[in-house]
């Protein structure tokens, strides 16, 4: 047992920061449609999601144990600097996509960061290209399609079965169902994503010789990762919630329920069968499917295509930032310091930029469409109400 070095400490803090961004980036997955259909008040929704993420993080350590061996070859001389650089890349990309209000995969950001940093400092031998294709790329394409098709079919079915019922009579039931399935997504998110951070911290501890190889994450790692993701979730990535809840399509309670159920099912089925997939992509796919599945439903394809573009960019972009960070950090202690300073500066700049058109729990449901459009929190542009109004009438006549 060696002592915890300063560098390992920095890696742990960075990993927890990533975990935090992961939490607020992904609140939208479980709660965006729950909030937009009014099933739960925004603050209640994020609080519930936070608690379930916290609980979920304690439920199992299976994912944490597979993260290191799967994609990165931990025997190839990965050093704490490399993990640090990977995390910085992941955090920067997560914040940039949050600023743009785009739901992109936090897991892909993490994998991209780690892969990029490993490539620069170790080379191709350090990564398992097969595992990347099978465990990351294929699920990335398949998961949103599967979730979308299932949600579309379920939406069609639920509208057909319920066609003799008035929407005001059924909305309450659908909302209750939505809360249950949203809760399941939150719980699954906690077990999956908090554990990825636990896995990274454990990997750092192993590379630093603090714990023995192949050991389970120590209790303090589990607790701190769980708390970090829960805090991030509670803070709520309102920009992304707005995009997913209002920007992709106008979600009604039956659609929200169908989408959430599809997401929960796909996430559970695939993680049970050993695919690590992106919760974000599954949930976005479901929401679009629910939009397509409803007669007269509208999917805002321009927002959707920007989102898909962000998905494609996530892996290489996080990898690029991490690669540059790894190059700098590899120059010695001063390099690590430079990376840390640049990383903090980037985060601060992104946060400052976000203040110019803040989105929070008060205006999360008020605008749809282009998340980049400058939004004055006080006066909401009048045209914003029009699309929801027209689709509401089309529903009434359908």
């Amino acid at each position, binding site marked *: 047992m060696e002592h915890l070095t300063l560098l390992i400490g920095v890696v742990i803090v960075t990993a927890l920061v990533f975990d935090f961004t992961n939490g607020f980036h992904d609140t939208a997955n479980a709660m965006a449609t729950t909030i937009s259909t009014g099933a739960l008040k925004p603050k209640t929704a994020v609080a519930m999601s936070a608690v379930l993420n916290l609980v979920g993080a304690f439920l199992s350590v299976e994912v944490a144990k597979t993260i290191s061996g799967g994609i990165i070859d931990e025997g190839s001389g990965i050093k704490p600097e490399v993990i640090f650089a990977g995390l910085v890349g992941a955090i920067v990309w997560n914040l940039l996509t949050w600023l743009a209000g785009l739901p992109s995969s936090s897991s892909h950001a993490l994998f991209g960061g780690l892969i990029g940093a490993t490539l620069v400092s170790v080379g191709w031998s350090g990564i398992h290209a097969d595992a990347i294709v099978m465990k990351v790329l294929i699920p990335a394409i398949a998961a949103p399609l599967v979730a979308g098709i299932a949600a579309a*079919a379920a939406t069609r079915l639920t509208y057909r079965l319920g066609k003799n*019922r008035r929407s005001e009579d059924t909305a309450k039931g659908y909302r209750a169902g939505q809360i249950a399935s949203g809760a399941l997504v939150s719980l699954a998110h906690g077990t999956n994503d908090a554990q990825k951070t636990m896995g990274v911290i454990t990997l750092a501890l192993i590379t630093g010789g603090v714990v023995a190889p192949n050991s389970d994450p120590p209790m303090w790692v589990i607790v701190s990762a769980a708390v970090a993701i829960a805090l991030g979730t509670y803070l709520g990535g309102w920009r992304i919630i707005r995009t997913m809840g209002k920007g992709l399509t106008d979600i009604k309670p039956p659609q929200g329920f169908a989408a959430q159920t599809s997401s929960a099912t796909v996430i559970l089925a695939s993680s049970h069968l050993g695919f690590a997939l992106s919760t974000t992509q599954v949930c976005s796919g479901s929401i679009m499917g629910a939009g397509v599945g409803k007669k007269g439903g509208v999917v805002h394809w321009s927002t959707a295509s920007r989102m898909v573009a962000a998905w494609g960019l996530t892996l290489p972009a996080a990898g690029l930032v991490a690669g540059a960070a790894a190059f700098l950090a590899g120059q010695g202690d001063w390099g690590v310091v430079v990376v840390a300073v640049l990383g903090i500066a980037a985060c601060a700049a992104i946060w400052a930029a976000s203040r110019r058109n803040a989105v929070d729990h008060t205006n999360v449901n008020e605008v749809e469409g282009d998340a980049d459009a400058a939004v004055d929190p006080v006066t909401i542009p009048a045209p914003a109400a029009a699309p929801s109004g027209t689709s509401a009438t089309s529903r009434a006549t359908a």
Partner: protein
Amino acid sequence: MSIEWAALGEVFGVSLVVTVGIVGVFTLGIVGTARRTAPAGEGDGESVAPTGAARAGATVCFAACAAAVAYGIYLIVA
């Protein structure tokens, strides 16, 4: 490198069947408990309260969905 088509297909099949199944059953539960509106043209917005049998059927539907959620939690924990 081999692509595990069988596993992918399994995820697809299971997801589709389970999603549509749960949403269908839950919708039946909602339909069973909600007031039935008269078909368009007959009566002006009149609606009929659900019968006892419909309510009982709906309870069974909701119980089935609750069981599915419990199984989901079991999958997460296990």
